[in-house]
Protein backbone atom coordinates (compact mmCIF):
# COMPACT_ATOMS: atom_id res chain seq x y z
CA UNK A 1 0.00 0.00 0.00
CA UNK A 2 1.45 3.39 -0.93
CA UNK A 3 1.63 6.17 1.64
CA UNK A 4 -0.90 8.96 1.27
CA UNK A 5 0.99 12.27 1.11
CA UNK A 6 -1.72 14.29 2.83
CA UNK A 7 -4.99 13.46 4.58
CA UNK A 8 -7.35 15.86 6.34
CA UNK A 9 -9.47 13.89 8.81
CA UNK A 10 -12.68 15.29 10.34
CA UNK A 11 -11.19 18.77 10.44
CA UNK A 12 -13.28 21.57 11.93
CA UNK A 13 -12.69 25.00 10.44
CA UNK A 14 -13.10 28.18 12.50
CA UNK A 15 -16.76 29.23 12.54
CA UNK A 16 -18.09 26.02 11.01
CA UNK A 17 -19.08 23.05 13.20
CA UNK A 18 -19.35 20.43 10.44
CA UNK A 19 -16.08 18.52 10.00
CA UNK A 20 -14.50 18.10 6.57
CA UNK A 21 -12.35 15.24 5.33
CA UNK A 22 -10.43 14.76 2.13
CA UNK A 23 -7.25 13.17 0.78
CA UNK A 24 -4.46 14.44 -1.42
CA UNK A 25 -3.37 11.39 -3.45
CA UNK A 26 0.21 10.92 -4.57
CA UNK A 27 1.20 12.49 -7.93
CA UNK A 28 -1.96 14.59 -8.02
CA UNK A 29 -2.49 18.32 -7.92
CA UNK A 30 -5.33 19.07 -5.52
CA UNK A 31 -6.82 22.53 -5.07
CA UNK A 32 -9.28 23.75 -2.48
CA UNK A 33 -10.92 26.99 -3.56
CA UNK A 34 -12.95 29.22 -1.32
CA UNK A 35 -13.50 32.78 -0.20
CA UNK A 36 -11.49 34.35 2.59
CA UNK A 37 -14.37 33.74 5.01
CA UNK A 38 -14.52 30.03 4.21
CA UNK A 39 -11.41 29.28 6.28
CA UNK A 40 -9.56 27.90 3.27
CA UNK A 41 -6.45 29.91 4.23
CA UNK A 42 -6.02 27.82 7.37
CA UNK A 43 -5.60 24.51 5.50
CA UNK A 44 -1.91 24.93 4.51
CA UNK A 45 -1.11 26.00 8.08
CA UNK A 46 -2.83 22.86 9.39
CA UNK A 47 -0.97 20.70 6.88
CA UNK A 48 2.37 21.97 8.17
CA UNK A 49 1.31 22.01 11.84
CA UNK A 50 1.78 25.79 11.91
CA UNK A 51 -1.69 26.03 13.43
CA UNK A 52 -3.64 23.57 15.50
CA UNK A 53 -7.16 22.72 14.28
CA UNK A 54 -9.95 22.89 16.85
CA UNK A 55 -10.91 19.32 16.04
CA UNK A 56 -9.72 16.62 13.68
CA UNK A 57 -6.21 15.86 12.51
CA UNK A 58 -3.94 16.10 9.51
CA UNK A 59 -1.75 13.22 8.43
CA UNK A 60 1.29 13.96 6.31
CA UNK A 61 2.84 10.80 4.87
CA UNK A 62 0.73 8.90 7.46
CA UNK A 63 2.25 10.89 10.30
CA UNK A 64 0.25 13.09 12.66
CA UNK A 65 2.74 15.94 12.68
CA UNK A 66 0.88 17.69 15.50
CA UNK A 67 1.91 14.88 17.87
CA UNK A 68 5.63 15.08 17.11
CA UNK A 69 8.05 16.92 19.41
CA UNK A 70 9.03 20.36 18.16
CA UNK A 71 12.45 19.32 16.90
CA UNK A 72 10.93 16.51 14.85
CA UNK A 73 8.21 18.84 13.51
CA UNK A 74 10.87 21.22 12.17
CA UNK A 75 12.80 18.36 10.57
CA UNK A 76 9.53 17.05 9.11
CA UNK A 77 8.66 20.40 7.56
CA UNK A 78 11.97 20.40 5.71
CA UNK A 79 10.68 17.35 3.81
CA UNK A 80 7.67 19.33 2.55
CA UNK A 81 7.92 22.31 0.22
CA UNK A 82 5.94 25.33 1.34
CA UNK A 83 4.98 28.40 -0.65
CA UNK A 84 3.28 30.75 1.82
CA UNK A 85 0.65 33.30 0.81
CA UNK A 86 2.37 36.40 -0.57
CA UNK A 87 5.86 35.01 -0.74
CA UNK A 88 7.29 34.98 2.79
CA UNK A 89 10.72 36.01 1.50
CA UNK A 90 13.10 37.57 3.99
CA UNK A 91 13.44 41.20 3.00
CA UNK A 92 17.00 41.68 4.22
CA UNK A 93 18.28 38.92 1.94
CA UNK A 94 18.58 38.91 -1.85
CA UNK A 95 16.36 36.56 -3.86
CA UNK A 96 19.39 34.26 -4.29
CA UNK A 97 20.13 34.21 -0.56
CA UNK A 98 16.47 33.51 0.16
CA UNK A 99 16.56 30.46 -2.10
CA UNK A 100 19.81 29.29 -0.48
CA UNK A 101 18.56 29.71 3.09
CA UNK A 102 16.84 26.31 3.60
CA UNK A 103 19.84 24.50 2.10
CA UNK A 104 22.32 26.44 4.23
CA UNK A 105 20.30 25.79 7.37
CA UNK A 106 19.08 22.27 6.83
CA UNK A 107 21.63 20.41 4.73
CA UNK A 108 25.25 19.42 5.14
CA UNK A 109 26.10 20.49 1.59
CA UNK A 110 29.22 22.59 1.13
CA UNK A 111 28.97 26.20 0.01
CA UNK A 112 30.14 25.32 -3.50
CA UNK A 113 27.47 22.64 -3.90
CA UNK A 114 24.81 24.98 -2.55
CA UNK A 115 25.87 27.72 -4.96
CA UNK A 116 25.71 25.28 -7.86
CA UNK A 117 22.32 24.00 -6.87
CA UNK A 118 20.97 27.52 -6.39
CA UNK A 119 22.21 28.54 -9.83
CA UNK A 120 20.25 25.64 -11.34
CA UNK A 121 17.12 26.49 -9.33
CA UNK A 122 17.25 30.17 -10.30
CA UNK A 123 17.65 29.28 -13.97
CA UNK A 124 14.80 26.79 -13.72
CA UNK A 125 12.39 29.39 -12.32
CA UNK A 126 13.73 32.07 -14.70
CA UNK A 127 15.10 34.66 -12.31
CA UNK A 128 18.87 34.22 -12.59
CA UNK A 129 19.26 37.73 -14.03
CA UNK A 130 17.57 39.34 -11.02
CA UNK A 131 18.90 36.95 -8.36
CA UNK A 132 20.85 39.66 -6.54
CA UNK A 133 17.82 41.92 -6.08
CA UNK A 134 16.22 42.31 -2.69
CA UNK A 135 12.53 41.29 -2.61
CA UNK A 136 11.47 44.93 -2.31
CA UNK A 137 13.16 45.68 -5.67
CA UNK A 138 11.68 42.67 -7.50
CA UNK A 139 8.26 42.34 -9.13
CA UNK A 140 5.45 40.24 -7.63
CA UNK A 141 6.08 37.54 -10.20
CA UNK A 142 9.83 37.43 -9.58
CA UNK A 143 9.23 37.19 -5.85
CA UNK A 144 6.73 34.36 -6.30
CA UNK A 145 9.22 32.53 -8.55
CA UNK A 146 11.95 32.97 -5.92
CA UNK A 147 9.61 31.69 -3.21
CA UNK A 148 8.81 28.66 -5.36
CA UNK A 149 12.52 28.00 -5.94
CA UNK A 150 13.01 28.16 -2.17
CA UNK A 151 10.14 25.72 -1.62
CA UNK A 152 11.73 23.33 -4.14
CA UNK A 153 15.21 23.58 -2.60
CA UNK A 154 15.09 20.05 -1.16
CA UNK A 155 13.19 18.66 -4.17
CA UNK A 156 10.25 17.63 -1.96
CA UNK A 157 7.68 14.99 -2.88
CA UNK A 158 4.87 17.12 -1.48
CA UNK A 159 4.41 20.82 -2.09
CA UNK A 160 1.94 22.95 -0.14
CA UNK A 161 1.01 26.22 -1.84
CA UNK A 162 -1.10 28.96 -0.27
CA UNK A 163 -2.69 31.35 -2.76
CA UNK A 164 -0.03 30.56 -5.39
CA UNK A 165 -1.68 32.33 -8.33
CA UNK A 166 -2.90 35.43 -6.54
CA UNK A 167 -2.05 38.52 -8.60
CA UNK A 168 -0.24 36.61 -11.35
CA UNK A 169 -1.03 36.68 -15.06
CA UNK A 170 -2.42 33.44 -16.51
CA UNK A 171 0.85 32.88 -18.36
CA UNK A 172 2.90 33.28 -15.17
CA UNK A 173 0.45 31.12 -13.20
CA UNK A 174 0.68 28.36 -15.84
CA UNK A 175 4.48 28.40 -15.73
CA UNK A 176 4.46 28.39 -11.94
CA UNK A 177 2.13 25.38 -11.83
CA UNK A 178 4.26 23.43 -14.30
CA UNK A 179 7.41 24.19 -12.33
CA UNK A 180 5.67 23.09 -9.14
CA UNK A 181 4.49 19.85 -10.75
CA UNK A 182 8.11 19.12 -11.64
CA UNK A 183 7.31 17.19 -14.82
CA UNK A 184 5.20 14.10 -15.30
CA UNK A 185 5.40 10.61 -13.90
CA UNK A 186 3.35 7.59 -14.93
CA UNK A 187 0.69 8.38 -12.32
CA UNK A 188 0.42 12.14 -12.93
CA UNK A 189 2.71 14.95 -11.84
CA UNK A 190 6.12 14.03 -10.40
CA UNK A 191 5.31 15.96 -7.22
CA UNK A 192 2.13 15.92 -5.18
CA UNK A 193 0.65 19.41 -4.94
CA UNK A 194 -1.81 20.73 -2.43
CA UNK A 195 -2.92 24.29 -3.06
CA UNK A 196 -5.52 26.64 -1.68
CA UNK A 197 -6.78 29.99 -2.87
CA UNK A 198 -9.74 32.11 -3.79
CA UNK A 199 -9.64 31.14 -7.44
CA UNK A 200 -7.74 29.17 -10.05
CA UNK A 201 -7.31 30.60 -13.56
CA UNK A 202 -9.64 28.66 -15.89
CA UNK A 203 -6.79 27.70 -18.21
CA UNK A 204 -5.10 25.90 -15.34
CA UNK A 205 -8.09 23.76 -14.36
CA UNK A 206 -7.24 20.82 -16.64
CA UNK A 207 -3.80 20.64 -15.00
CA UNK A 208 -5.30 20.30 -11.52
CA UNK A 209 -6.60 16.75 -11.15
CA UNK A 210 -8.81 17.31 -8.10
CA UNK A 211 -10.62 20.56 -7.32
CA UNK A 212 -12.78 21.21 -4.26
CA UNK A 213 -14.84 24.25 -3.40
CA UNK A 214 -15.18 25.18 0.23
CA UNK A 215 -18.19 27.32 1.14
CA UNK A 216 -20.08 27.74 4.42
CA UNK A 217 -18.18 24.87 6.01
CA UNK A 218 -19.06 22.43 3.22
CA UNK A 219 -16.54 20.88 0.92
CA UNK A 220 -17.79 20.07 -2.59
CA UNK A 221 -15.76 18.26 -5.21
CA UNK A 222 -15.82 20.00 -8.59
CA UNK A 223 -13.71 17.65 -10.63
Amino acid at each position, binding site marked *: MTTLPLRFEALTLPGYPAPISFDVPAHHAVAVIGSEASGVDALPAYALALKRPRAGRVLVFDEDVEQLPRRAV*LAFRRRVGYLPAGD*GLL*HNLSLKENVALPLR*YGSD*LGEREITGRIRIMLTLVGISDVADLRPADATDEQRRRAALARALAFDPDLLVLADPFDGLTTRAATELLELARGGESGAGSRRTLFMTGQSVPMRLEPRIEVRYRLAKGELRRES
Partner: protein
Amino acid sequence: MVGVAALGQGVARSIAWVGALARFFFHTLEAARWLPRAGRRVAFRVLLRQVWFTALQALPLIVVLSSILSFLVISQAVRELGRLGATELIGRLMVVAIVRELGPLITALAIAGRSGTAIAAELATNKVMGEVNALEGMGIDPLHYHVLPRFGAALLSVFGLIVVFDVVAILSGLLAANANGMTSAHYFNIVLASLTLRDVGLTVAKALVFGVIVGMIPSFHGLAVRGSPTEIPVASSQAAVGSILAIFLCSGLFVVLLA
Protein backbone atom coordinates in the same frame (compact mmCIF):
# COMPACT_ATOMS: atom_id res chain seq x y z
CA MET B 1 -11.75 50.02 45.30
CA VAL B 2 -11.31 50.72 41.59
CA GLY B 3 -7.81 51.99 42.30
CA VAL B 4 -6.89 48.82 44.20
CA ALA B 5 -8.26 46.67 41.37
CA ALA B 6 -6.25 48.66 38.82
CA LEU B 7 -3.12 48.32 40.95
CA GLY B 8 -3.72 44.57 41.26
CA GLN B 9 -4.15 44.25 37.51
CA GLY B 10 -0.94 46.19 36.94
CA VAL B 11 0.99 43.92 39.33
CA ALA B 12 -0.52 40.80 37.75
CA ARG B 13 0.43 42.05 34.27
CA SER B 14 3.99 42.72 35.41
CA ILE B 15 4.32 39.26 36.94
CA ALA B 16 2.88 37.68 33.77
CA TRP B 17 5.37 39.71 31.70
CA VAL B 18 8.32 38.51 33.79
CA GLY B 19 7.05 34.91 33.56
CA ALA B 20 6.60 35.06 29.79
CA LEU B 21 10.02 36.64 29.38
CA ALA B 22 11.66 33.96 31.54
CA ARG B 23 9.92 31.23 29.50
CA PHE B 24 11.13 32.86 26.28
CA PHE B 25 14.68 33.04 27.67
CA PHE B 26 14.74 29.35 28.66
CA HIS B 27 13.18 28.28 25.34
CA THR B 28 15.97 30.18 23.58
CA LEU B 29 18.65 28.49 25.69
CA GLU B 30 17.04 25.12 25.08
CA ALA B 31 16.81 25.77 21.33
CA ALA B 32 20.55 26.53 21.31
CA ARG B 33 21.22 22.92 22.34
CA TRP B 34 19.78 21.49 19.15
CA LEU B 35 20.74 24.07 16.56
CA PRO B 36 21.66 21.94 13.50
CA ARG B 37 25.34 21.95 12.51
CA ALA B 38 24.57 23.61 9.18
CA GLY B 39 22.24 26.05 10.95
CA ARG B 40 25.18 27.28 13.04
CA ARG B 41 26.76 28.76 9.91
CA VAL B 42 23.53 30.56 9.05
CA ALA B 43 23.12 31.84 12.62
CA PHE B 44 26.75 32.98 12.66
CA ARG B 45 26.19 35.11 9.54
CA VAL B 46 23.19 36.77 11.19
CA LEU B 47 25.26 37.27 14.36
CA LEU B 48 28.04 39.02 12.41
CA ARG B 49 25.53 41.34 10.72
CA GLN B 50 24.03 42.16 14.11
CA VAL B 51 27.46 42.81 15.69
CA TRP B 52 28.21 45.16 12.80
CA PHE B 53 25.03 47.12 13.53
CA THR B 54 24.99 46.89 17.33
CA ALA B 55 28.68 47.26 18.17
CA LEU B 56 30.66 48.74 15.30
CA GLN B 57 28.12 51.31 14.15
CA ALA B 58 27.52 52.35 17.77
CA LEU B 59 31.23 52.88 18.45
CA PRO B 60 31.28 56.65 17.71
CA LEU B 61 28.28 57.21 20.01
CA ILE B 62 29.94 55.34 22.89
CA VAL B 63 33.27 57.14 22.38
CA VAL B 64 31.56 60.56 22.41
CA LEU B 65 29.42 59.77 25.48
CA SER B 66 32.33 58.30 27.41
CA SER B 67 34.86 61.01 26.62
CA ILE B 68 32.50 63.90 27.41
CA LEU B 69 31.22 62.33 30.63
CA SER B 70 34.66 61.42 31.91
CA PHE B 71 36.18 64.78 30.92
CA LEU B 72 33.45 66.70 32.76
CA VAL B 73 33.56 64.55 35.91
CA ILE B 74 37.35 64.45 36.22
CA SER B 75 37.75 68.20 35.42
CA GLN B 76 35.34 69.09 38.18
CA ALA B 77 36.78 66.52 40.57
CA VAL B 78 40.41 67.66 40.11
CA ARG B 79 39.37 71.24 40.82
CA GLU B 80 37.09 70.58 43.78
CA LEU B 81 39.10 67.78 45.41
CA GLY B 82 42.30 69.75 44.78
CA ARG B 83 40.96 72.54 47.01
CA LEU B 84 40.48 69.98 49.78
CA GLY B 85 43.82 68.33 49.10
CA ALA B 86 42.14 65.05 48.30
CA THR B 87 43.14 64.49 44.68
CA GLU B 88 44.03 60.88 45.54
CA LEU B 89 40.31 60.19 45.60
CA ILE B 90 40.10 60.84 41.86
CA GLY B 91 41.34 57.31 41.23
CA ARG B 92 38.54 55.79 43.28
CA LEU B 93 36.03 58.15 41.70
CA MET B 94 37.13 57.11 38.23
CA VAL B 95 37.05 53.40 39.02
CA VAL B 96 33.84 53.23 41.06
CA ALA B 97 31.70 55.93 39.49
CA ILE B 98 32.73 55.72 35.86
CA VAL B 99 34.40 52.37 35.11
CA ARG B 100 32.24 50.21 37.38
CA GLU B 101 28.90 51.99 37.56
CA LEU B 102 28.30 54.54 34.80
CA GLY B 103 30.27 52.73 32.08
CA PRO B 104 28.10 49.61 32.00
CA LEU B 105 24.91 51.57 32.74
CA ILE B 106 25.29 54.23 30.02
CA THR B 107 26.58 51.72 27.46
CA ALA B 108 23.66 49.36 28.08
CA LEU B 109 21.14 52.22 27.96
CA ALA B 110 22.63 53.52 24.70
CA ILE B 111 22.49 50.07 23.08
CA ALA B 112 18.99 49.40 24.39
CA GLY B 113 17.81 52.71 22.95
CA ARG B 114 19.66 52.40 19.67
CA SER B 115 19.75 48.69 18.81
CA GLY B 116 17.10 47.24 21.13
CA THR B 117 14.33 49.26 19.53
CA ALA B 118 15.69 48.38 16.08
CA ILE B 119 15.73 44.66 16.91
CA ALA B 120 12.15 44.80 18.22
CA ALA B 121 10.94 46.74 15.17
CA GLU B 122 12.76 44.42 12.77
CA LEU B 123 11.40 41.22 14.31
CA ALA B 124 7.90 42.68 14.61
CA THR B 125 8.02 43.64 10.91
CA ASN B 126 9.24 40.14 10.03
CA LYS B 127 6.29 38.70 11.94
CA VAL B 128 3.75 41.03 10.32
CA MET B 129 5.17 40.40 6.82
CA GLY B 130 4.80 36.63 7.29
CA GLU B 131 8.56 36.00 7.28
CA VAL B 132 8.53 34.27 10.68
CA ASN B 133 5.67 32.04 9.55
CA ALA B 134 7.56 31.23 6.34
CA LEU B 135 10.68 30.29 8.34
CA GLU B 136 8.58 27.97 10.51
CA GLY B 137 7.05 26.46 7.37
CA MET B 138 10.53 25.74 5.98
CA GLY B 139 11.50 23.97 9.20
CA ILE B 140 13.73 26.79 10.43
CA ASP B 141 13.19 27.68 14.08
CA PRO B 142 12.84 31.48 14.42
CA LEU B 143 14.67 31.16 17.74
CA HIS B 144 17.66 29.79 15.81
CA TYR B 145 17.51 32.28 12.98
CA HIS B 146 16.31 35.44 14.69
CA VAL B 147 16.78 35.25 18.44
CA LEU B 148 19.99 33.31 19.17
CA PRO B 149 22.20 35.37 16.83
CA ARG B 150 20.81 38.62 18.22
CA PHE B 151 21.26 37.35 21.75
CA GLY B 152 24.88 36.40 21.05
CA ALA B 153 25.51 39.67 19.25
CA ALA B 154 24.04 41.69 22.13
CA LEU B 155 26.26 39.88 24.65
CA LEU B 156 29.39 40.48 22.56
CA SER B 157 28.46 44.06 21.70
CA VAL B 158 27.56 45.15 25.23
CA PHE B 159 30.73 43.56 26.60
CA GLY B 160 32.95 45.06 23.89
CA LEU B 161 31.42 48.51 24.09
CA ILE B 162 31.72 48.60 27.91
CA VAL B 163 35.45 47.88 27.53
CA VAL B 164 35.67 50.68 24.93
CA PHE B 165 33.68 53.03 27.18
CA ASP B 166 35.96 52.39 30.15
CA VAL B 167 39.21 52.71 28.20
CA VAL B 168 38.05 55.95 26.54
CA ALA B 169 36.83 57.25 29.91
CA ILE B 170 40.23 56.63 31.52
CA LEU B 171 42.03 58.33 28.60
CA SER B 172 39.62 61.24 28.58
CA GLY B 173 40.05 61.55 32.34
CA LEU B 174 43.78 61.77 31.70
CA LEU B 175 43.24 64.74 29.37
CA ALA B 176 41.04 66.43 31.97
CA ALA B 177 43.60 65.79 34.71
CA ASN B 178 46.43 67.16 32.53
CA ALA B 179 44.36 70.23 31.67
CA ASN B 180 43.95 70.88 35.38
CA GLY B 181 47.65 70.52 36.24
CA MET B 182 47.93 66.84 37.20
CA THR B 183 50.75 64.82 35.62
CA SER B 184 50.00 61.73 33.56
CA ALA B 185 52.15 59.52 35.80
CA HIS B 186 50.33 60.66 38.94
CA TYR B 187 46.94 60.19 37.27
CA PHE B 188 47.71 56.65 36.16
CA ASN B 189 49.20 55.82 39.57
CA ILE B 190 46.07 56.77 41.47
CA VAL B 191 43.66 55.23 38.96
CA LEU B 192 45.51 51.91 38.71
CA ALA B 193 46.02 51.78 42.48
CA SER B 194 42.24 52.08 42.92
CA LEU B 195 41.39 49.39 40.38
CA THR B 196 40.83 46.00 42.02
CA LEU B 197 40.04 42.58 40.63
CA ARG B 198 36.62 42.88 42.23
CA ASP B 199 35.88 46.01 40.16
CA VAL B 200 36.84 44.18 36.98
CA GLY B 201 34.70 41.18 37.99
CA LEU B 202 31.69 43.38 38.72
CA THR B 203 32.05 45.18 35.39
CA VAL B 204 32.20 41.85 33.54
CA ALA B 205 29.16 40.53 35.46
CA LYS B 206 27.21 43.67 34.58
CA ALA B 207 28.24 43.36 30.93
CA LEU B 208 26.84 39.83 30.84
CA VAL B 209 23.57 40.69 32.60
CA PHE B 210 22.96 43.82 30.52
CA GLY B 211 23.85 41.85 27.38
CA VAL B 212 21.17 39.29 28.23
CA ILE B 213 18.64 42.09 28.80
CA VAL B 214 19.45 43.88 25.52
CA GLY B 215 19.41 40.60 23.60
CA MET B 216 16.25 39.11 25.08
CA ILE B 217 13.69 41.82 25.81
CA PRO B 218 13.59 43.38 22.31
CA SER B 219 13.43 39.93 20.65
CA PHE B 220 10.64 38.91 23.01
CA HIS B 221 8.54 41.99 22.24
CA GLY B 222 9.33 41.83 18.51
CA LEU B 223 8.11 38.26 18.17
CA ALA B 224 5.11 38.79 20.45
CA VAL B 225 3.17 40.82 17.85
CA ARG B 226 0.23 39.02 16.31
CA GLY B 227 0.09 40.42 12.82
CA SER B 228 -1.09 44.01 12.69
CA PRO B 229 1.33 46.72 11.47
CA THR B 230 0.09 49.04 14.23
CA GLU B 231 1.73 46.69 16.75
CA ILE B 232 5.23 47.41 15.40
CA PRO B 233 5.78 50.82 17.09
CA VAL B 234 4.13 49.47 20.25
CA ALA B 235 6.56 46.52 20.34
CA SER B 236 9.45 48.88 19.77
CA SER B 237 8.40 51.17 22.57
CA GLN B 238 7.71 48.28 24.97
CA ALA B 239 11.15 46.88 24.19
CA ALA B 240 12.82 50.21 25.00
CA VAL B 241 10.86 50.76 28.22
CA GLY B 242 11.26 47.15 29.38
CA SER B 243 15.01 47.10 28.66
CA ILE B 244 15.69 50.44 30.35
CA LEU B 245 13.67 49.44 33.39
CA ALA B 246 15.42 46.06 33.63
CA ILE B 247 18.85 47.66 33.24
CA PHE B 248 18.17 50.14 36.07
CA LEU B 249 16.67 47.44 38.30
CA CYS B 250 19.64 45.12 37.78
CA SER B 251 22.06 47.98 38.31
CA GLY B 252 20.33 48.69 41.63
CA LEU B 253 20.45 45.00 42.55
CA PHE B 254 24.19 44.89 41.86
CA VAL B 255 24.71 47.81 44.26
CA VAL B 256 22.48 46.31 46.95
CA LEU B 257 23.83 42.77 46.74
CA LEU B 258 27.46 43.14 45.74
CA ALA B 259 28.81 46.64 46.26
